[in-house]
């Protein structure tokens, strides 16, 4: 019940922001602006969906931004230069679909690495994913020699065109990133609430010892949440590269912080076990609307950063006040019964 209240509160904040910006800036509610806004939100929301699973399980994934960058570079390298097999003196160019699959697999693999470190080796999630944050970023820089892969459009004769559709294509008029966000949000909601896996994620984050004693395979659950997060991070990296039609090794820096902010704004507890995907999506929209609206109002870039920070902290303070009230209410309920 408290959960729904929290989401409701985030939703109210979102509606208030929308109303304020709509009133102050006539350009805000236009279709053009909204499309740009939601495309931006989609990037963060997809990262935040993966992050929500990780945080629900009681962990954190700091590597998502780097993984996005690495996935973009992997795709860029395969599209631009192909796979150079010096031993046989051949260069293999893959079909676009295969390029995408390989890049996604790289993301999932980095996620599996995180999961393995956290569940088997018992490294604290913060440390393990901080490590992969650096390793993945370094790998992206090494792969491209620090340079950008320009022009990911592909070449007709190599059969690897069409990659840009991931970022700039549309499905019945709706931009692809937004379509992905909607599908993944729906899927994420269903998995979290309606599958045994989702239930076990909540259980592991809620009380790991109890989950273990209840027959939940804690290690496997932890492994999979990081795989999901890594996979979605790679997808985001591909979408960004496709939008820009180029892959840059620095893509995604500090994205992990925006994703965590969206999760926290959405009412998911950083200690795990409470919250959900619905809140996260709203949280991602709050951040996106705030950024877009402040730009339209001509607020200085530096103030935008300060305001974003203030909104995050005050939202969490509100949560805690509400939490305490709810606890008091529960205690009262019980002492009366």
């Amino acid at each position, binding site marked *: 019940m408290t*959960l729904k209240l929290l989401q409701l509160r985030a939703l109210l904040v979102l509606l208030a922001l929308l109303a304020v910006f709509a009133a102050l800036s006539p350009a805000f509610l236009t279709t053009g602006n909204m499309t740009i806004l939601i495309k931006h939100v989609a990037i963060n929301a997809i990262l935040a969906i993966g992050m929500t699973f990780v945080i629900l399980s009681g962990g954190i994934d700091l590597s998502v931004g780097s993984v996005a960058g690495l996935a973009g570079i992997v795709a860029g390298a395969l599209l631009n230069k192909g796979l150079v097999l010096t031993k046989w003196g051949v260069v293999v160019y893959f079909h676009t679909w295969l390029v995408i699959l390989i890049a996604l697999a790289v993301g999932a693999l980095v996620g599996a690495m995180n999961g393995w470190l956290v569940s088997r080796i018992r490294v604290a999630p913060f440390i393990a994913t901080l490590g992969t944050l650096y390793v993945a970023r370094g790998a992206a820089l090494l792969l491209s020699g620090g340079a950008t892969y320009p022009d990911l459009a592909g070449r007709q004769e190599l059969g690897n065109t069409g990659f840009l559709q991931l970022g700039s294509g549309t499905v019945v008029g709706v931009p692809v990133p937004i379509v992905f966000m909607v599908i993944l949000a729906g899927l994420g909601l*269903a998995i979290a609430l309606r599958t045994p896996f989702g*239930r076990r994620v909540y*259980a592991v984050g809620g009380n790991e010892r109890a989950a273990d*004693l209840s027959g939940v395979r804690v290690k496997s659950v932890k492994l999979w949440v990081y795989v999901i997060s890594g996979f979605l991070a790679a997808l985001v990296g591909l979408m960004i590269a496709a939008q820009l039609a180029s892959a840059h090794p620095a893509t995604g820096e500090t994205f992990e912080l925006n994703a965590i902010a969206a999760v926290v704004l959405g009412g998911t507890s950083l200690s795990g*076990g409470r919250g959900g995907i619905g809140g996260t999506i709203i949280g991602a929209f709050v951040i996106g609307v705030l950024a877009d609206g402040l730009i339209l109002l001509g607020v200085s870039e530096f103030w935008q950063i300060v305001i974003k920070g203030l909104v995050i902290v005050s939202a969490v303070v509100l949560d805690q006040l509400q939490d305490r009230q709810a606890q008091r209410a529960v*205690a009262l309920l*019980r002492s009366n019964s």
Partner: protein
Amino acid sequence: MNDCVLEARGVSVQYPGTLALSNVTYSLRRGQIGALIGENGAGKSTLVRVLAGITQPTSGQLVCDGSPLPQSGVEMAARLGIAIIHQELNLCPNLTIEENIFLGRERTRWGLIDHREQRRVTSQLLGRLNLAVDPSLRVGDLPLGQQQLVEIAKALAGNVRVLMMDEPTSALSAHEIVTLFRIVRELAASGVAIVYISHRLEELLEIADTVTVLRDGRLVAEAPASEVDVPWIVEQMTGRSAASSQAAGEVAVTEPILTVDGLTLFHPHGRALLRDVSLQVRSGEIVGLYGLMGAGRTELLESIMGLRAAAQGSIALGGKALDKLDTSERIAAGLAMVPEDRKTAALFPGHSVLSNLTISQVGALARRGWLSPTAEQVPGQQMCERLTVKTPGLNAPIDSLSGGNQQKVVLGRCLMTAPRALLLDEPTRGVDVGAKEELHEKIRQLAKEGAGVLVASSELDEIRALAHRVVVLSRGQVSGEFAHHAASDEALACAASANGAIQEVRT
């Protein structure tokens, strides 16, 4: 009554779901050693916490030296010289003995800690406790018994007028207990008022001047220790005469369902927690596992469940070896466990009653990978009815239920997987009397339906009410095995405090 140092007047403490203390008036006198006795959940620890200013009473007040305390609090208590030695140790394992003893009241010179002075005082204190260790050793490196003595030294370091000890001997060796008793008597002789809590009744009668019995949060009896004996105490504690134990009756001899053979478990620091433990539980049989705190009951159950990777020995369920299986595979094979500490090991806080109930079975309840609401609700509802769980609804947060109903949900979770052997660790801890009876009835019912039940308890009353057969653990070893009719309080208590291996096996 100038002797009265500290008094709780008409103190009540209301916890969510339970009335932990109900209108208790209890006074501590100079130089007197008062024993506080009661079963688990009777309110002893709560009363001590109130006296020490840790828990605020819902109603009633504390009176110190004849004048009511305007407010209570830990700092106020410290200023008045009230010290408490908790059941669980409150030491920082990463700091040295000396640093622990002076934590929060460091001796300083020119603003810097005066280690030389601190070490001198610490050496003196340790000498008083016959503890010959270097004050600059890290507390985490000491064996548990010595840590307990450090805790006691820490309490003595301040200016103590009231010293409360909650199960101080649970981790001590017989030799260390003798030392402790000498110190306690010395302190009392110097005018300190002492409150002593223990489950070891013989020990209490040896040390105490007065005996106070709590039951279900109420003070039910108070008497000079010289005028009472163990049967009287047991009768006051349980509310019925010691002789009238509920007969669990005999059980038909069937095949053993759960077999534990030669189970040994070492603590990471090398101490043996369990040593060559063997036992069997037959289908339809309830086996009681009795022992004092630290005897290894929980460790045994956790090893059977596969939660202790270091456990050696063999465990079999219905003839099938479990040794290579992890916990979830053991549950799938037909084991289930209700852990001792509901809050830290069983409940998912903030989650609904339903998801707390079905978590062990979500995989089996899902159809083609999806959990439909009804697939969960129907069996959840049935289990609630079977165990008469009182809840506002299946979607109510588990935290809103009373302790007894929470425990029923935990038991229900275990039953969801239809286990062939059920391990219960203190199944009625922190549960009110009514729910306790109900839980006992359900457990008997389960055994009648053919499950083998191993129930660990520190309450003699509970063991007698449930067990067909009782296995007693002492310091990690089986120290006795008794058929129901032979399991008298005296026999069990005697076996539980035994030092050696099996003393006798009566059938």
